[in-house]
């Protein structure tokens, strides 16, 4: 894949996804923008309900059009997806853009064989015959490392192990060589060894085909492994963005600090106690005023006044780097210094 | 009650279920007003059952004015006939059909006004009686033939009587069998004709057949009109299978019979109208459909479209359609007093004190009960057990039921107090269905008002007769019905009140054991003078009523409907349904 193409492959601008429910409007995504280049991986981090999964379902157009209002722009390779006709989206899904879901057991149809489920994507988009589709399915299963794919292709999902199901799911997503792959917590349910294998597989495939990947997770360890850039979401908004290095090494937002503190460090001492972020994710029906993180933020006092509760911080991005917080650069540097000091103690 | 029809029929012979016997007119009841006249007509028709002469017995039957031959008639029946084999036919709803297939020695010639004459049917006259009623001779007419053209012979007639003894024939009447052998356990004396033996008590000579009875039976010529005693051809007796397709000697023969589904009767070309004083036989064909429920049949007749215009139902108009029929299809209703009498038995083995029985009868809410069963269309208030259709019927009113059908609990209370039996416990048994449940309440209230301690017991209607028919049954009062097998008093009083008829499953439901009644039955049975005998039976009606062994209820009425293209559709006074042999298809 050539990298001379400087146009972002996927460009999301000011995306707003609002669901109307009986209780009112849920602002699941509230003004989200990001770009993704070909061959790059964007990690999206956040707790459950932060809007990361909704964002990606919306990109594929899988939201319920009756109850969902989508604003903003989603451009894939220069083509606007928001408001595009269903036929157009149908043609792109599974073909140019594909998705890997979290729970492979639930996400694969129990009524069809693995081979049929993989093959039908190929037949649909490539117009292949049944026989060709089956051969392609076997090839894909072999590529994702399923042993004896010739016989396994006729198995049902319940006859596969958890790791194999996830591989089959990946095979299904990649069968048409998609240019954009959205992986929604694909490894969460798997044990560590299998997780590592899957990650390696995705990396290999990306290297080979130059696929752009959006990797959704709440696990910063996984991000550290795979992402080029990181986007941290909180309460339907982006609170911090930057390269993997920038976000993990010098995080700017107190929420990112909280996330980092809540995970075990691979390179640090194992006996450091974990510090989960106190409080619970915000309601998207009645989001907190001002900064949505302020009720859980330990630094709101430092900002002073009542600013965090009244004024929504603006996300300012320079060269793909920035965060939405009222803390000054000095205050952040001070905190990070304390943190480093504590680490080295 | 519509479900339990067959069971009811089987147990009593009264082809009527409570609530389904309906008719338009009322009587006996002073509030009935203008319709009172019809009751008089009914009475008139009954008192004229007379014995016809040889001249009366000659064919053909008098023409029905306006009638013409030809056409097809459709019959809408709920159930198939339980029997067609004459020896197995007993119940009215079977007889109604079989009467056009099988002729017996005698039969009833019914005039336009409903009056009846007993005439010779296969026989030249109504028979010759000798030995004070112990010997009876009948001579066959010339020209009476089976459906294959062969003559009906005295051997065939004898074969009919003899085959009634066969072990597979258990459903028919048993009167003649016991008179011919002198025993109710008649099979011990004679086991039927299939062993090659004939009954010694029947002799034949030329075209004459003579019966030697063990007891005097002055009304024997009525008895042989029963289909049970019709001939069966010796050559065509298919035994058990005869029931599905009998061999005809009447105006129609069975063309096809698909059990429980359909039956087609077509003309028997060998039937000679000039030998038959009873049957006109106008239509060419009768098409029976079975499995058509009562309500469906009546709704189809009310709609009166297509073939249903040529149809008639074997079932009465159900209570819920009576009003509609009377408004929409008044001219297509045919009706009459049936031979059935409804009454409530009082168990005399349990309630031995006649005063207590009298108190029950006095208190009984007859009017309210009739109202719950359709009112005046249910029937006319009864005063005894003898139907107005039985020869010699005489109006009497022992209990003042005509004057006060509502009942008089106050008077009953006095009787009970006088007898020192206030608070006496009575057990009332009733069939479990919605109408009977309402009647139960009315009965309970009336008896309580009279000072009784009432206990009601519901009985599943399919086991009603099994339970109330036991001698040791634990009930004091239970409903019953009866219709006579021939229109003389014998088949009313002997089965119901003869102390010999007290048995488990027997017909003396009140268990009355009264020497005076027994003696009176014996005397009336032996009386050879018809008029005297009839008067004796009428007196017996009063006598048994006075014993307090039953509470008179109603003389039942019936209301039927026919299609608009049928003419002269009338109710048979003996078999309580339409007379196939008198109706015709309109042009």
């Amino acid at each position, binding site marked *: 894949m050539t990298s001379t193409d400087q146009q972002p492959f996927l460009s999301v601008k000011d995306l707003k996804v609002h669901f109307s429910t009986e209780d009112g409007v849920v602002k699941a995504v509230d003004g989200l923008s990001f770009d993704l280049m070909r061959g790059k991986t964007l990690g999206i981090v956040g707790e459950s309900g932060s809007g990361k999964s909704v964002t990606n379902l919306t990109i594929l157009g899988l939201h319920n059009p009756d109850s969902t209002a989508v604003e903003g722009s989603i451009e894939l390779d220069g083509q606007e997806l928001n408001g595009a006709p269903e036929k157009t989206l149908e043609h*792109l*899904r599974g073909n140019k853009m594909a*998705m890997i879901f979290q729970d492979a057991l639930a996400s694969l*149809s129990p009524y069809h064989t693995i081979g049929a489920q993989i093959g039908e994507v190929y037949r649909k988009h490539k117009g292949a015959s049944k026989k060709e589709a089956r051969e392609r399915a076997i090839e894909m299963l072999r590529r994702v490392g399923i042993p004896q794919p010739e016989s396994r292709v006729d198995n049902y999902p319940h006859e596969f192990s958890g790791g194999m199901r996830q591989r089959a799911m990946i095979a299904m997503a990649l069968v048409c060589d998609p240019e954009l792959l959205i992986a929604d917590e694909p490894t969460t349910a798997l044990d560590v060894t299998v997780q590592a294998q899957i990650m390696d597989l995705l990396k290999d495939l990306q290297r080979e085909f130059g696929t752009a990947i959006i990797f959704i997770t709440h696990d910063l360890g996984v991000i550290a492994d795979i992402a080029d850039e990181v986007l941290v979401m909180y309460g339907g908004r982006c609170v911090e963005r930057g390269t993997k290095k920038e976000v993990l090494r010098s995080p700017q937002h107190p929420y990112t600090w909280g996330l980092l503190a809540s995970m075990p460090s691979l390179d640090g001492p194992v006996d450091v106690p974990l510090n989960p972020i106190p409080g619970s994710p915000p309601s998207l029906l009645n989001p907190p005023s001002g900064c949505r993180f302020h009720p859980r933020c330990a630094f709101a006092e430092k900002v002073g006044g009542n600013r965090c509760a009244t004024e929504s911080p603006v996300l300012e991005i320079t060269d793909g780097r920035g965060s939405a917080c009222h803390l000054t650069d000095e205050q952040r540097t001070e905190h990070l210094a304390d943190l480093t000091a504590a680490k080295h103690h | 009650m519509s479900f339990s029809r067959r069971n009811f029929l089987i147990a009593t012979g009264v082809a009527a279920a409570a609530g389904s016997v309906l008719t338009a007119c009322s009587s006996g009841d002073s509030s009935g007003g203008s319709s009172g006249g019809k009751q008089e007509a009914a009475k008139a028709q009954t008192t004229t059952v007379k014995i016809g002469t040889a001249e009366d017995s000659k064919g053909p039957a008098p023409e029905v004015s306006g009638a013409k031959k030809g056409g097809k008639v459709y019959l809408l029946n709920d159930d198939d006939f339980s029997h067609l084999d004459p020896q197995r036919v007993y119940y009215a709803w079977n007889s109604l059909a079989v009467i056009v297939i099988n002729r017996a020695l005698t039969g009833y010639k019914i005039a336009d006004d409903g009056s009846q004459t007993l005439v010779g049917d296969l026989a030249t006259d109504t028979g010759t009686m000798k030995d004070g009623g112990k010997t009876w001779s009948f001579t066959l007419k010339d020209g009476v033939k089976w459906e294959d053209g062969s003559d009906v012979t005295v051997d065939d007639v004898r074969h009919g009587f003899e085959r009634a003894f066969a072990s597979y024939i*258990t459903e028919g*009447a048993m009167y003649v069998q016991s008179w011919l052998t002198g025993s109710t356990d008649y099979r011990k004396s004679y086991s039927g004709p299939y062993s090659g033996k004939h009954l010694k008590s029947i002799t034949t000579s030329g075209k004459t057949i003579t019966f030697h009875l063990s007891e005097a039976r002055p009304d024997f010529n009525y008895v042989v009109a029963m289909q049970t005693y019709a001939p069966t051809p010796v050559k065509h007796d298919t035994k*058990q299978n005869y029931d599905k397709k009998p061999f005809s000697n009447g105006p129609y023969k069975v063309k096809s019979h698909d059990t429980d*589904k359909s039956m087609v009767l077509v003309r028997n070309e060998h039937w000679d109208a000039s030998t038959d004083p009873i049957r006109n036989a106008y239509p060419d064909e009768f098409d029976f459909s079975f499995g058509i429920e009562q309500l469906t049949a009546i*709704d189809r007749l009310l709609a009166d479209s297509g073939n249903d215009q040529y149809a008639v139902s074997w079932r009465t108009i159900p209570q819920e359609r009576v009003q509609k029929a009377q408004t929409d299809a008044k001219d297509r209703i045919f009706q009459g007093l049936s031979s059935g009498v409804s009454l409530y038995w009082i168990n005399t083995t349990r309630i031995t004190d006649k005063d207590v029985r009298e108190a029950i009868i006095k208190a009984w809410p007859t009017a309210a009960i009739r109202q719950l069963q359709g009112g005046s269309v249910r029937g006319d208030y009864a005063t005894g057990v003898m139907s107005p259709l039985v020869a010699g019927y005489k109006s009497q009113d022992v209990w003042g039921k005509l004057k006060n059908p509502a009942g008089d609990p106050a008077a009953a209370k006095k009787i009970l107090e006088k007898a020192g039996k206030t608070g006496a416990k009575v057990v009332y048994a009733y069939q479990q269905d919605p109408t009977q449940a309402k009647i139960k309440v009315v009965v309970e209230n009336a008896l309580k008002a009279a000072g009784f301690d009432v206990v009601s017991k519901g009985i599943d209607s399919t086991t009603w007769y099994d339970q109330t028919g036991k001698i040791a049954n634990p009930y004091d009062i239970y409903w019953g019905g009866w219709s006579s097998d021939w229109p003389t008093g014998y088949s009313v009083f002997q089965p119901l009140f003869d102390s010999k008829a007290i048995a488990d499953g027997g017909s003396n439901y009140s268990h009355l054991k009264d020497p005076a009644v027994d003696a009176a039955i014996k005397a009336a049975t032996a009386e050879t003078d018809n008029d005297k005998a009839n008067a004796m039976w009428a007196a017996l009606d009063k006598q048994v009523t006075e014993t307090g062994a039953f509470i008179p209820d109603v003389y039942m009425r019936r209301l039927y409907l026919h299609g608009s293209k049928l003419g002269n559709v009338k109710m048979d006074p003996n078999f309580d349904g339409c007379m196939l042999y008198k109706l015709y298809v309109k042009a």
Partner: protein
Amino acid sequence: MFRFLVRRILGAVITLFIISAITFMLFYAVPRDPARMACGKLCTPETLQLIRHNMGIDEALPVQYWHWITGIFLGREYPGFGHCNAPCLGYSFVNREPVLSTIADRFPTTVSLALGSAVVFLIFGIGTGMLAAVKQGKALDKIASSASLVASSMQIYFVGPLALYFLVYQFHILDQPSYNSFLGDPLSWANGLLVPWLVLALIWTANYTRMTRSQLVETLTEDYVRTARAKGMSRRNVFFRFAWRGAMAPIVTIFGIDLGTLLGGAMITEYTFSLQGIGLLSVKSVQTNDLPMLLGIMVITSSFVVIANIIVDAVYGLIDPRIRLA
């Protein structure tokens, strides 16, 4: 599959034996005498005894049951009815025909009624249920849902006579209900059964509408349905191949049970429309204390229910590969 069938059929045979034995005992638990009914109006104890002998009910209960069982395999001789060929379920006390031939005669009516109405209620019930599920929450869904609620609360004995009155008697739109052999004349077969089919279907459709809707609403939210959409499958394809496939299994189960029940005879329907099927036959047999017929009907109809269950389980295994048949 073979083991599954052998095991289930063995179980079915045992079930049928138990059912027949219980029916036998229950029949005699009630104080009634079938012989009384075949006896004349004026019955004598001698005649009663003769009838009991003729009917084969003069022996001890276990002996009678034994005769009944052996009759199925070996045939049986009746003093009153003659020989009954194996498989013999006895002679009816009432119409005095072999029970099996009467049941065989009535069965086509019941089967026609059941299958015909099943076709109608499946098409309309599932069709409407699908529409309602697709248009979830919209006017069409609300109309279908409330209409099915109304229809399901209706009863045959109410709708039946009403339909007869308007469609047949009053306006002559449809033919008088009747049964004509399908082989004889398919057109008059369908004509004669149209009214009962429609009435029966009206009431059953509602159940299937509601069931289909609720099943589909559930499966449409399944992850694998979302996956199918994410793969670029068309809405139609997703709906039928994925969502409907998942919704089908419970519907097939219920349908199997319903069909078994319908094949046992729709009593009220057959009564209302005067159709001579198994349902009407069983009602009449109860009324007339016709034990052999009742037993025969019980055994035949319960074997249909049992067979329907086996078929449903087998079909369930085909629909859902996760269910293993053994």
